[in-house]
C-alpha cells in the first residue's frame, strides 16, 4: 500500500471516531512539519507552538478533509498558513515591543554559533531570507529546501505553474542581489 493510501486509511479511521489514528498522524508528520515551520520562519529553532497550532487545526478540520491532495500537502498548507499568522503576530509584537527584535536575533545568533558550519554564511542567508516577503519565501523554501515538485507546490500554495515560476524568479533575483558576493 502506498504512503497516500495509508494516509487515506488513517483519515477514514479518524472520521469514524478512532482517535488513535490521529496519534499516528501526529507521530508521522510532526517532524516534517517542524522542519518546514523552522525553515519558513527563518530558522528560529523553537517551533513547537506553530506545530501545535498546525495539529490543532488538523484535529478540528480533519473530518472535513476531502482527500483532494495528500495528507502531507494538506498539513503543509496548514503549516504555511500558521506560519503566516505566526509571523504576523511576531511583526505586531515587534512593533509594540522593539526589544523583541533583539531577543529574536540573539536567539538565532546563539543557535548559529552552536553550528560547526560557517555561521557567517548562515547569518547572511538568514537575513536575506528574512527580507523576502512570505509570498516569495514560501516557494523558495518548498522548492529548494523541501525539494517538493512544482505541481505539489502549486497545490499547497494555490498557485498556477506560471505564477509559481514568476515568484521563484523574483525571489531568486532578490536573493542574488542580497548574497551577490557569496554567489560570485
Amino acid at each position, binding site marked *: 500500500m502506498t504512503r497516500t493510501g495509508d494516509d487515506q486509511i488513517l483519515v477514514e479511521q479518524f472520521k469514524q471516531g478512532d482517535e488513535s489514528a490521529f496519534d499516528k498522524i501526529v507521530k508521522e508528520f510532526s517532524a516534517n512539519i517542524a522542519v518546514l*515551520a523552522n525553515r519558513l520562519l527563518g530558522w528560529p529553532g523553537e517551533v513547537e507552538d506553530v506545530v501545535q497550532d498546525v495539529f490543532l487545526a488538523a484535529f478540528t478540520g480533519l473530518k472535513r478533509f476531502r482527500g483532494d491532495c495528500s495528507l502531507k500537502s494538506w498539513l503543509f498548507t496548514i503549516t504555511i498558513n500558521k506560519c503566516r499568522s505566526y509571523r504576523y503576530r511576531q511583526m505586531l509584537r515587534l512593533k509594540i515591543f522593539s526589544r523583541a527584535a533583539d531577543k529574536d536575533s540573539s536567539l538565532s545568533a546563539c543557535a548559529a554559533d552552536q553550528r560547526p558550519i560557517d*555561521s557567517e554564511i*548562515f547569518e547572511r542567508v*538568514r537575513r536575506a531570507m528574512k527580507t523576502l516577503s512570505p509570498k516569495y519565501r514560501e516557494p523558495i523554501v518548498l522548492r529548494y529546501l523541501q525539494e517538493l515538485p512544482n505541481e505539489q507546490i502549486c497545490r499547497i500554495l494555490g498557485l498556477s505553474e506560471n505564477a509559481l515560476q514568476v515568484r521563484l524568479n523574483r525571489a531568486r533575483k532578490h536573493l542574488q542581489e542580497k548574497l551577490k558576493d557569496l554567489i560570485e
Partner: protein
Amino acid sequence: MTEDKIKNLLQVADRAAGEPGPTHISAAAIRRHAGHRQLIINIAAPAAIAAILLFASIIVIQAARPHKPSEQKQIVSLQQELKHLQAETDAVLNLVQQVLEEERQTERLNDLQATLASIPDPIEEAQRQVDKTAFVLVYQADRLYRQSNQTDSAVHAYNQVIKLFPQTRWAEVARQRLTEIENRKPNEPHSQGGQRWKPRNV
C-alpha cells in the same frame, strides 16, 4: 547556474541552522487543547455578544442624553433658581394667608362686638322695668284718686310706689300727689274744681 548556487547556499544555511528543537507534541495534548478551545468558544461567543450588547446599550443611553456638560450645568443652575423662586413664592403666599386670616379674625371680632353691643344692658333694662312699674302704679293711683274718688286706695298706691321704688322719679311724683291730697282734704273734695288731673309723662 545561479539557481544552483542559491540552492546550495540555502541548503548550507539550513544545515547550519540544524534541526528544530524537539517537539513534545502529543495527540492527547492536542485533543485537550481542542477541548479547551471549544469550551472557550462556547463561553466566549455568548460573553462577547453580551458585552457588545451592553456596550451598544451604554452608547445608546449616552446618545439619548442630548445635553452637553455646559448645558447640564445651566440646567442645574436654572433648576436651583427655580427652586429658590418657588421657596420665595411659598413664603409670600404664607404671609398673604396669615394677613387674610388676621383680617378675617378682626372682622369676626367686630361682628361679635356689634352683636354684644346690640344686646341691652340688663341693669338698665331692669331699671327701665322698675321705672315702668312705678309709672303704672302712679298712673293707677291717679285714676283711683281723680276718676274714681277712691282717695284711700290712691294714697295706698302712692305709698307703695314710694316704698317699693324710692329711687325712681315716680316716687317723687307719688310724694307730690300725697302732698296735694293732704292739702286738699280739709277744704275741697278732689272732684270739685272742674279740672281733671292727668298723669304726666304718659
